[in-house]
């Protein structure tokens, strides 16, 4: 019986290793090519930092990258704040229409991004000029990203709130804490891990988002995914490898650092 479990565990480990291989091989290949001097990805491999230097001079890519980061940060702040508030309302109050409102969160998830992106383009085109705004732009992209992030934030924070019984907040009230005090001193610290997880999700959603950004980006202003896309369509430039490697390295580091402080994967 023991050997059977060990075989099973061994198989599991092997399988997971294979899956990870599948997930990471392309990424490593690309990272390797970022350090390879050949512009046509020819072997033998010659270590060179030339593409990183080229990247430093590639204003378009750098500006696109900065835009992506700024958007992602703004998106995270807004979506997390709005989504957490809504999740609180759903969890702490029961009211008619709650079910309907929760169902209304489904469209951003169940409608293809292509449809959402084009719809936004049409709508903004018709309405923004009369408000003095251009239909396309970073502001439009931000609107779209937050809309996509909101359902995820609400779901993740909502899950954390379910684990957190209302009686704890009631106890604080009986002890004399105003609703505001209860929120800051009791509720917020308890739901913090859930909010952080939701924030990370929101950041990834925005940084990763291509389709919406593609339709709402005006000429000259792009996000990183859009810029990479246009570069690929025009022809390979190995700086793409360089910036991609940087992105992956940075995101991995951030992820690892936050994982140290908060436990993911359900272990508590």
């Amino acid at each position, binding site marked *: 019986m023991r050997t059977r479990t060990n075989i099973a565990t061994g198989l599991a480990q092997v399988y997971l290793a294979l899956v990870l291989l599948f997930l990471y091989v392309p990424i490593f290949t690309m990272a390797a090519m970022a350090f390879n001097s050949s512009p046509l990805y020819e072997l033998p491999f010659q270590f060179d930092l030339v593409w990183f230097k080229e990247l430093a001079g590639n204003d378009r890519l750098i500006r696109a990258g900065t835009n992506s980061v700024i958007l992602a940060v703004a998106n995270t702040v807004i979506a997390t704040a709005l989504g957490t508030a809504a999740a609180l309302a759903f969890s702490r109050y029961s009211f008619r229409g709650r079910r309907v409102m929760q169902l209304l969160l489904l469209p951003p998830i169940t409608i293809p991004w292509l449809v959402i992106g084009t719809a936004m383009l049409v709508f903004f085109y018709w309405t923004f000029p009369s408000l003095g705004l251009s239909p396309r732009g970073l502001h439009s992209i931000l609107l779209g990203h937050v809309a996509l992030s909101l359902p995820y934030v609400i779901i993740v924070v909502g899950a954390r709130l379910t684990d957190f*019984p209302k*009686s*704890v907040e*009631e*106890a*604080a*009230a*009986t*002890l*004399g*804490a*105003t*609703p505001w*005090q*209860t929120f800051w*001193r*009791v509720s917020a*610290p*308890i739901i913090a891990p859930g909010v952080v997880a939701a924030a990370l999700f929101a950041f990834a959603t925005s940084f990763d988002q291509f389709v919406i950004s593609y339709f709402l980006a005006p000429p000259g202003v792009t996000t990183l995914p859009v810029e990479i896309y246009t570069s690929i369509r025009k022809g390979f430039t190995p700086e793409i490898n360089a910036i991609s490697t940087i992105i992956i390295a940075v995101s991995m580091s951030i992820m690892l650092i936050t994982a140290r402080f908060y436990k993911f994967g359900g272990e508590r």
Partner: protein
Amino acid sequence: MSEVRVVDCDKRYGRVAALDGVTLTFVNGEFFGLLGPSGSGKTTLLRAIAGFIELDRGRVLLDGDDIGHVPVHRRDIGMVFQNYALFPHMTVFDNVAFGLSVRKMAADEIKRRVDEILGLVRLSGLQERKPRQLSGGQQQRVALARALVTRPKVLLLDEPLGALDKHLREEMQVELRRIQREVGITTIFVTHDQEEAMTLCDRIAIMNQGGIVQIGPPLEVYEHPINRFAAGFLGVANFLEGRVASVSGGEARVDLTLGGQAVAAADGFKPGDAAVLAVRPEKIGIEAGQGGAGVNRLDGTVTGAVFSGSSTTYRVQVGDQTLAVFQQNAAPRRFEVNDPVTLHWSSEHNVPVAP
């Protein structure tokens, strides 16, 4: 130390009446139990007093003031929840100090009061622990300390001992009583466990379906239940049905359907009335042999015997009814299934109840 009064309280959820015209006075300093099955309204009443529920009709008065529109955090109450509701991210000290820090008390005064109350509940030395590091009984005491440290006017307890095992529960019952006596605070205690209610409370109210069935000290309610529900809910009762044969000299003689006669206090009975008499199992004596039905006397056959350490509960078949008899295990003789027995009891233990 305060008096709480609820007057004419109504609360409906859809078509169900959670509270129906409930009026009650909780006297200064008493330990009062709200007892009843699920859905009886006891928790609804408690939460209405706390302020979590808004009544459809009626008033909640604290020391004469109507606090119906006062929000929870200004009501000056202390509450212990069924799941304790300790703040998981705070230490024992911070949990207990919370109510004081919200009132912006000075740090050294807070420390003094917290240490004092932790001493009272016998948890000194555990200030720096987190709730998840404590046992159930310890968590319960932290919850109690937290509720009491602010010196509220009234203490509300919502089935606080429900999650504890039997031994711990009995231990905590003693502790709870001791602490309440020492502090002297008006306490309202909700429970569905009638034994617990009788053990702890100065007075109890039996509730059912949103209304109050009977109020009084446990002894009185137990020995003189006013109806079948009260008799059946508090403890166990045998119900003997019959018709009044005659009334004289303050006594009524009731012909029992099971045979024989029972003598009870006259109490407004007229000959020919239908009567139901409740007799508690521990009031019935059980003897070997059968001598025929008589006054407060019935023959039966043992159909079950359940041994519980200090006592034995017999189920005795009399006619088509099964009666419960409770005997302490000091009696010389023990009965087995199928033994023929005689049951007898005294007239004072025939309690007339409304049918």
